[in-house]
């Protein structure tokens, strides 16, 4: 427990408090993330995922319960929000909402410039951030942001956050709306950041393939509560939970669950394509070979 960089305890959140439209988004949510871990949060639209991750960099403050990020307690009124936001980089779902400069380089430099760094330092950071997400600094910095493709926009948004040199990276549906090729590329970049640059990563996703690819641990949310938590293997193996809360599953897991229901001895936790192939091979009749 001592090494948890993110600690969420009994967190509640109510939107539009004291209005006719009041509704509760979080009910006593608990979550811990260890330094260097990659954690996925999955669940329906309206399950409270987005509200939860907005607490992680202080866009929302705990109304009840506790959020502690690397020693910074968000319940404290005198919290240094800027320090918190330097530590936690939040990438939103829609890149259009977070790219506001006209040129790519300016947009990536926005955060560091706000921090008052020298242009030299800002340039170095921007360069690092762009290379790490796979954008060539020399080619891209003078490009106009509106003319970028969807995949490039995501990368610019990600680089803009990385240029702040955060320790924790929080991503809201990092690949929604991308074509398969850009998606794969982006996922590899995120995995690299997590494994080689030692960033703690928390991401929200609907895409089970991507959860399977990236996450060490998964939190399943439904109706503002955490309903299940564990390794992807554990969660995907639990068909009851997935069905009960209408969580989609990877095609591999779906096949295995269906086979299992038909009485075949397969392990539904084997979610990687190669593993699934092995599982299927293991149950095929010997005579068919």
């Amino acid at each position: 427990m001592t090494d948890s960089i993110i600690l969420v305890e009994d967190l509640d959140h109510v939107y539009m408090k004291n209005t006719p439209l009041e509704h509760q988004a979080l009910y006593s949510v608990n979550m811990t993330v260890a330094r260097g871990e990659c954690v996925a949060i999955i669940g329906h639209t309206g399950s409270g995922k987005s509200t939860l991750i907005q607490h992680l960099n202080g866009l929302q403050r705990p109304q009840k319960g506790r959020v502690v990020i690397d020693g910074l307690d968000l319940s404290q009124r005198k919290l240094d929000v800027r320090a918190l936001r330097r530590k936690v980089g939040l990438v939103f779902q829609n890149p259009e909402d977070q790219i506001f400069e006209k040129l790519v380089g300016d947009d990536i430099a926005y955060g560091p410039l706000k921090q008052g760094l020298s242009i030299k330092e800002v340039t170095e950071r921007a360069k690092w951030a762009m290379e790490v997400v796979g954008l060539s600094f020399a080619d891209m910095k003078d490009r106009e942001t509106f003319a970028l493709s969807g995949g490039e926009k995501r990368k610019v948004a990600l680089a803009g956050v990385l240029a702040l040199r955060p320790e924790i990276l929080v991503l809201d549906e990092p690949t929604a709306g991308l074509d398969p090729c850009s998606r794969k590329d982006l996922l590899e970049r995120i995995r690299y950041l997590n494994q080689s640059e030692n960033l703690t990563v928390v991401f929200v996703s609907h895409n089970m393939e991507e959860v399977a690819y990236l996450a060490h641990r998964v939190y399943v949310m439904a109706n503002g509560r955490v309903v299940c938590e564990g390794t992807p293997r554990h969660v995907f193996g639990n068909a009851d939970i997935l069905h009960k809360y209408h969580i989609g599953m990877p095609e591999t897991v779906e096949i295995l669950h269906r086979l299992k229901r038909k009485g075949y001895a397969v392990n539904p936790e084997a979610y990687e394509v190669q593993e699934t192939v092995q599982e299927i091979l293991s149950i095929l009749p010997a005579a068919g070979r």
Partner: protein
Amino acid sequence: MASSFELTRNITVGQYLPTGSIIHRLDPRCKLAAFVILILGIAFCGTYGSNVLALILCTALFPLARIPIRYGLSGVKPAIPFILILAILQLLFYGKGFGTGGQTYFHYGFVTITSDSLRLVVVSAMRFVEVIFLSSVLTLSTSTTELTHGMEHLLMPLRKVGFPVHAFALIITIAVRFVPTFALEMEKMMKAQASRGAEFGTGSWWRIVQRTKDMFPIIIPLFNVALKRAEDLILAMEARCYTPTDERTTYKRYHASAKDVFAVVTSLVIVAVLFAIPV
């Protein structure tokens, strides 16, 4: 603090309060017509007597619409300092300006208070409260959709002189439709910028330049987003066979009943009475 991002909470364009009262059930066309008649009437009546009567009538609308009067008063409250400032300015300086008339109550140096200037202050304060009350009742008892429909129908006669009524109503509909969408968009942009070190509303109010500069990274992208959405919407409307100049049919139809006509006639009578009051 964090809730400063909850823009949608502050949006009161559709502050519709459905209580199902007789005012709510009025035909929107007639309701709007009555409203316009009364507003114009009030704007042009400048005597004490008529404004007292108008104030009483406007207050009486709240119980009739089954809307708590505090909704009306909440519109008046923030205006009190302005009423006072204006009142002082007018009382002190009006007498010296054009149209000096009536009895002089007080005169010292450049300060002149006349019966006319006093009346102007009192009447404009009352008139303000009346208009607040009236427009509160209208917006609380009528959905924006009904308002738009009502307006469209009221403007229909203008088609004879070539005014594009349908198109005009459509513009209003689009405007109303996109307000919450843009509010959400703006909320997201503010959050994204805050996440990258921007600060909003933290500058002291007297640092006008700083606060104004903070505004640009929100306002300019907002326009760009709106114009981009406009391109999409144009395509979508064309794909659904919209051509501005063609004849269209309308989905919503209203039937004015006796009570609706009565509402309009009553408002005309009220305005006539207001003008008839001499002092």
